[in-house]
């Protein structure tokens, strides 16, 4: 064999405020299955996006079959024979199985596509999902769609196939068949497979080699034969800790402030309970997609059909929309500040006033814009907003300062309970420290705080108590020294407690 099938060399990629990949180097051979492992935010998705041509790296090279790539476009990646099967299947539900397999092909290509389509159908069948090519995708189960997505990735002379969590929607026995077929495809066709999964048993059974990403670096590389699950998990964790310690941990005798029991959603059978004491920060860890955001949204009734009993200070509170949860004293700082936290085209002060805190909007229907600006400025000053004006449009502030604006919305609403969803996503280190300080201060003032975060060091440094959610359900509770990366990761990934330590 002359050259490696794929050579990733010194790849670096930054986004405003975040360095997603710092220096990543590894290779992939023909017929090899390589697992790419790492926590949420370790850089796996960014790397796959670069490979698929959706992103251009800041530095470094991608070499395929000895030819260095000079252009990062999805077209070029397809021409190079690189197929990325995303976690969310890229399919058109209104089209049939066959039409989806032909999607994106020109008329000329379609003429010769018959054998490819048949091969893909055979592959899906071999994975345990025999499909009629005329079936509409909307009638297929998520598992069938995933299987089809995998088969499609191999259908058109792929050289390299990257699969991002391909088995999340499948049952055990399906998974075994899928993995078996993947190995055969790698060996029969000499395809290089990059496999991304959090399910360690799968990783161990399907892969030849594992590369662990951590904080944008390759933290570990080994052949599967010479490593263990424990070793891989150990290498995944231990991300750089931001040096933050809460100044005001919860007092041992603090009374219960907030309870939510039987929190449910229409799309899940699971119900969850949570209790937060005054001054307590409860962290919620879990994998992306484990249902943590949905849990918070259910608490504030942001979606239809959510349920559960809420009490504040022991008194039940009843509401049916975020309007009601706001008036009950619950603040929700959502994950996507650009779409859910701010109206970007409005000035900062008007955004701060959106929660209708009496200080900002007065009691009557009229607003005094001058006063609104003055009060918003006061809040902004207390949060050290930069630039120190509230008259710019919200989109003109940096990520960390936008986050401060979202928090600022709630500070005069007399909220007692703060629900944070990924409070420092896309925020740089300095901004993180400020937001942590703010959360600590809110707790010190006797509020109850829930922090959902995929950043484990964040959960660890902020939480008085941590819960782990998996498949929509809280599965473990951690206090004191048990709030550590090993036990949180092990729990989130469904590895029995203790074995990963």
């Amino acid at each position, binding site marked *: 064999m002359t050259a490696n099938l794929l050579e990733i060399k010194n790849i670096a990629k930054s986004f405003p405020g975040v360095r997603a990949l710092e220096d990543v180097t590894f290779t992939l051979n023909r017929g090899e299955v390589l697992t790419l492992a790492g926590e949420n935010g370790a850089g796996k998705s960014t790397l796959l996006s670069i490979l698929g041509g959706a992103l251009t790296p800041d530095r470094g090279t991608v070499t395929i079959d000895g030819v260095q790539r000079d252009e990062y476009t999805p077209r070029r990646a397809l021409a190079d024979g690189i197929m990325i099967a995303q976690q969310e299947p890229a399919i058109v539900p209104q089209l049939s199985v066959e039409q989806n397999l032909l999607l994106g092909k020109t008329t000329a290509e379609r003429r010769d596509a018959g054998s490819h389509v048949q091969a893909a159908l055979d592959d899906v069948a071999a994975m345990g999902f025999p499909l009629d090519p005329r079936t509409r995708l909307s009638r297929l189960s998520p598992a069938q769609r995933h299987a089809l997505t995998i088969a499609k990735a191999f259908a058109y002379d792929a050289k390299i196939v990257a699969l991002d969590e391909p088995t999340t929607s499948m049952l055990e026995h399906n998974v075994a068949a899928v993995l078996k077929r993947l190995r055969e495809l790698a060996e029969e066709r000499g395809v290089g497979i990059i496999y991304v999964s959090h399910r360690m048993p799968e990783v161990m059974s399907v892969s030849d080699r594992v590369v662990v990403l951590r904080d944008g670096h390759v933290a570990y590389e080994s052949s599967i034969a010479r490593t263990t699950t424990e070793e891989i998990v150990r290498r995944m964790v231990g991300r750089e800790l931001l040096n933050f310690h809460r100044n005001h941990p919860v007092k041992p005798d603090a009374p219960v402030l907030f309870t939510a029991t039987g929190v449910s959603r229409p799309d899940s059978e699971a119900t969850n309970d949570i209790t937060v004491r005054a001054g307590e920060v409860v962290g919620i860890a879990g994998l992306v997609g484990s249902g943590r955001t949905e849990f918070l949204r259910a608490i*504030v009734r*942001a979606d239809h059909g959510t349920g559960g009993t809420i009490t504040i200070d022991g008194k039940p509170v009843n509401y049916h*929309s*975020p*309007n009601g*949860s*706001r*008036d009950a004293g619950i603040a*929700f700082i*959502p994950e996507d500040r650009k*779409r*859910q*936290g*701010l*109206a*970007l*085209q*409005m*000035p900062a*002060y*008007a*955004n701060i*006033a*959106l*929660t*209708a805190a009496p200080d900002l*909007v007065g009691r009557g*229907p*009229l*607003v005094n*814009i001058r006063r609104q*600006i003055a009060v918003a*400025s006061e809040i*902004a*000053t207390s949060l050290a907003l930069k*630039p*120190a*004006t509230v*008259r*710019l*449009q919200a*989109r*003109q*502030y*940096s990520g960390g300062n936008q986050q401060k604006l979202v928090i600022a*919305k709630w500070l005069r609403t007399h909220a007692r309970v703060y629900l944070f969803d990924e409070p420092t996503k896309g925020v740089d280190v300095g901004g993180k420290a400020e937001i942590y300080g703010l959360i600590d201060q809110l707790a010190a003032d006797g509020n109850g705080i829930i922090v959902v975060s995929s950043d484990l060091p964040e959960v660890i440094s902020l939480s008085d108590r941590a819960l782990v959610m998996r498949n929509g359900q809280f599965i473990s509770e951690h206090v004191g020294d048990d709030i550590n990366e090993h036990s949180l990761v092990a729990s989130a990934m469904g590895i029995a407690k203790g074995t990963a330590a």
Partner: protein
Amino acid sequence: MSNDVAVAAPKQKRHINFQAVGIFAAAAVIFIIFGILNENFLTVNNLRDVAVSASVNALIGIGLTFVIITGGIDLSVGSIASFVGIASAALMVNNGVPSIPGLLIGLVIGFIAGVLNGLLITSLKLPPFIATLGTMSIYQGLAYVVTSGQPVYNVPESFVLLLNSYIAGVPIVVVVVIIVAVLAWLLLRKTVFGQNVIATGGSEETAWLSGVRVNRVKVIVYGISGLLAGLGGLVVVARISAAQSEAGAPYLLTAIAAAVIGGANLMGGEGRIGGTLVGALILGALTNGLVLLNVPSFYEQIVTGLVVVIAVAIDQGSKTWSGRRRKGGQATPNPATNESQAPGEAGAEDKSRVAR
């Protein structure tokens, strides 16, 4: 803090002028050109005619501006204008209802018709285009049903005087438009409701999660649109002393055009009452000026269409241009170069980027 605001303010002022004055400048240019081409155009009497002929588009356009700012559209305004006009006229002529109650009943009908649009959109989750496409047909049908398609003539003189007379030489309908515009501006810029309207259009999810009753905001906004469409329909009746089942239909597209020329963004989050007024005036001036110049009326629509396209293209162009410049120096947001909207103005450069 106050220093920063003071520093930012003058720069900000200069930039607003560029965008908001653009439409006024365009209007001035159009008026001057017509003035040069025909000496009768810039006379007091003729300008008064222009203002009167712009009034219906202005009223309906102001209501539509609210709807468009929330990211919606109301296709039923023309039908509501027809329905309200003929229903009120029929009540007054055939049932002897006095003028003022007749007027008020008409306004209530318009408001209810609008609220029904809002309920279809919020409760049944219909897209605004579809919901109001349906009610456009329904309300037009009702306008026929009221009088079996017959026009209503001989509307009482007292009613005509209410909306089609002069106070000290100023047409009463112009006064009405000015009052409505001032109230609408106050509602949009100086009330909690107005801020909620702008937020709903800018990011509905943000508004919802902040506790804004988004559905209520929308229902009221469509109610306003229906109310003002009804008022527009009544003005039409007063002007010709008669009501026809289709009298309001032509105003749908011209009222949307007035709002769009005035800077309303169909993507939501952006629109100006003053802009819509000027947009209506521009359309009125075009109609009037082309008649004075003896241009066959068939050409009027072509010119109107061109003006809409050019106005929006210029608006988008100026945003794209400032958007590019912003991208160049984005490392730290800088009030001196970035402030492009007056406080309280709803701008949406981010939308124009999306559109690109």
